[in-house]
């Protein structure tokens, strides 16, 4: 089974990465004769569609038995369907019609609507499985997002909370500055809706998969799986984590107060000066990563996001050893050089306010603003002052 894992994502396509090839048999090339024969026998010759590959990230192949992999695969297929035919379980508030438009092979449909939007627009980078390991992924820095653990960096929601749809929509509209993620603003609104629904689907499915791995493999759960337990402990909490932020916006979405006026050079200078003071203070700890000069050269040099942190061993040898169990090589995180004025989550004042206030999910950048139960290190006004300072480093005058 070892050879089924792609070394360092050199060819991170589902066909080569599937660590359990027997479970997802590759479509066989049928000879014309056999095809004709089958066509005659079954009035058709259909290729098996692509399958989602199991999320084996960080797991030695031998740590998962064939029986366990089969149980997880079957449970996921039963609950969520396949890349060609998605399914939605009762209690999971996903729109199946939108999912159908986003999924499947690229094709037209009656009424002029297209199917296969994800494969048309996203799959080259994000992969059929939404694992951020499409054919181009290994060449990109940063890597494309792996949707499966449901963590998205740039949100308006409080620390740790899933994004609201507007956050993901914003990313699709604008792209991610300084990365390979382009803007999809030219797409019709309903296609954006379909793609966003599919991203959410990857999140709910992926979180359920992580739960199943913990339950079946790590915790040695009994097989066959108890379907009601999987729903109760896996699927529904995963779905709920996605729908809660929309339902509890008042509590979970940071609402920036109006930006203090900076309409005169004096007011702006005062705000920037206060922001600088806060930036350099030991309470905000901004300098730890971004450096006192704001050039991203802080004392914390060994930084990784959550997707890469697990690839880091205690020694270089261990890191090299771990690399075998991941699709893509380890990638170090570089704290933003604020002088460049390029901000991945958006460079408008309100974007920067959100980054400072709620942090960047899945990275060491913490939430400096307050949240229910968490006082934070910066008041609303102070967050704005830090934003003014950061903008001034990047050359913004307004």
């Amino acid at each position, binding site marked *: 089974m070892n050879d089924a894992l792609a070394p360092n994502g050199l060819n991170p396509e589902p066909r080569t990465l599937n660590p359990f090839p027997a479970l997802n048999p590759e479509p066989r090339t049928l000879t014309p004769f056999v095809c004709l024969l089958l066509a005659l026998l079954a009035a058709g010759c259909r290729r098996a569609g692509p399958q989602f590959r199991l999320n084996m990230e960080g797991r030695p192949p031998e740590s998962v*038995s064939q029986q*366990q992999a089969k149980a997880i695969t079957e449970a996921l297929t039963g609950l969520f369907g396949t890349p060609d035919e998605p399914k939605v379980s009762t209690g999971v508030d996903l729109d199946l019609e939108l999912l159908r438009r986003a999924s499947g092979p690229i094709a037209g449909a009656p009424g002029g609507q297209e199917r296969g939007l994800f494969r048309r627009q996203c799959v080259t980078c994000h992969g059929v499985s939404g694992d951020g390991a499409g054919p181009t992924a290994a060449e990109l820095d940063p890597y494309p997002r792996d949707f499966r653990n449901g*963590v998205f960096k740039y949100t308006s929601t409080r*620390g*740790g*909370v899933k994004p609201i749809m507007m956050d993901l929509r914003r990313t699709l509209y604008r792209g991610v500055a300084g990365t390979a993620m382009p803007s999809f603003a030219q797409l019709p609104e309903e296609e954006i809706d379909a793609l966003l629904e599919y991203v959410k689907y990857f999140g709910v499915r992926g*979180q359920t998969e*992580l*739960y199943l791995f*913990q*339950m079946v493999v*790590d*915790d*040695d759960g*009994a097989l066959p799986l108890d379907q009601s337990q999987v729903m109760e*402990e*896996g699927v529904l*909490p*995963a779905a709920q*984590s996605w729908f809660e932020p929309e339902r509890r916006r008042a509590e979970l979405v940071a609402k920036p107060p109006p930006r203090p006026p900076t309409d005169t050079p004096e007011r702006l200078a005062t705000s920037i000066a206060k922001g600088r003071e806060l930036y350099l203070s*030991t*309470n*905000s*700890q901004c300098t*730890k990563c971004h450096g006192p000069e704001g050039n991203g050269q802080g*004392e*914390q040099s*060994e*930084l990784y996001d*959550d997707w890469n942190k697990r690839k880091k061993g205690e020694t270089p040898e*261990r890191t090299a*050893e771990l690399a075998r169990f991941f699709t893509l090589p380890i990638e170090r995180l570089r704290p933003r050089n604020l002088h460049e004025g390029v901000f991945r989550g958006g460079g408008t004042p309100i974007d920067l306010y959100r980054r400072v206030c709620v*942090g960047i*999910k*899945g990275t*060491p*950048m*913490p*939430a*400096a603003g307050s*949240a229910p*139960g*968490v*006082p*934070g*290190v910066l008041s609303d006004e102070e967050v704005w002052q830090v934003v003014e300072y950061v903008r001034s480093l990047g050359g913004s005058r307004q």
Partner: protein
Amino acid sequence: MRSKLTRRRFLAGTAAAGVTAVGVACPAIARAAEGQWGDLVGRFIYDGKAPERKKLTVDKDVDCCGKFDIRDESLMVGPDGGLANVFVYLRSRIAAVSTAVEKSLPKRVVLDNRDCIFQPHCMGVWYGKQEFLIINSDPVAQNVDFKPMGDTPANIVLPAYDAKKSPDKKVEATWKFAQAQFAPILIKCNYHPWESGYILIRSNPYHAVSAADGTFRIAKLPVGKLEFQLWHERVTYLDAPGWPKGRCEIAIRPDRNDLGTIRLAPTRLERKS
């Protein structure tokens, strides 16, 4: 994959007066008798010479943190061999929790950033019933980062505690968990990479962390056969004698159930490569 051990044996070391010998068998599930409760106690001993605790590299906020003797906490062995920080928790799903336990349980589980380490290093919480409170007693800002699976991840900052200016005012952060975890999860500080801790989040109060002398106690378990899990940060599931993959089914009887001394050879606590 679950072990098919069916043997039944009685652990040695339960000879203290008034102690009920504990029947241990793996596995088999039985129902707890209604309204009867028993405590589970025991002690972990590291059966060898404790390795010297390595001094950790403290190269951030050195003015404050540099003055503490900060050492590796991954294997804490007491003077007479008691092994601390072993998690013992109920693995079986249960129908009822003793109301006495619920009433007597502290409302808060506190994680203190003190002397540039997390104190305590290991802790358990009954989510929904106990609040997780994080405080900072250090004069530098601290960060607390943990990622419970399927639950909201946390990455929060606590401002420095100013003992001179406002001695009574420590900033407190409270965190609510919404889901139980199969095993303890790691707590890290992104500012001070040497800091680490572990928290177990469960949907019942039946868990304990062994104390500095290696002892533990889980109070008022429902009587009947229950499966328990041992976990230690060095090896995750702690494979102890009679506890394959750190698991064992124990027939809990009313009152006190003493597992006696569980001796752990050093090889059982060697990190997995």
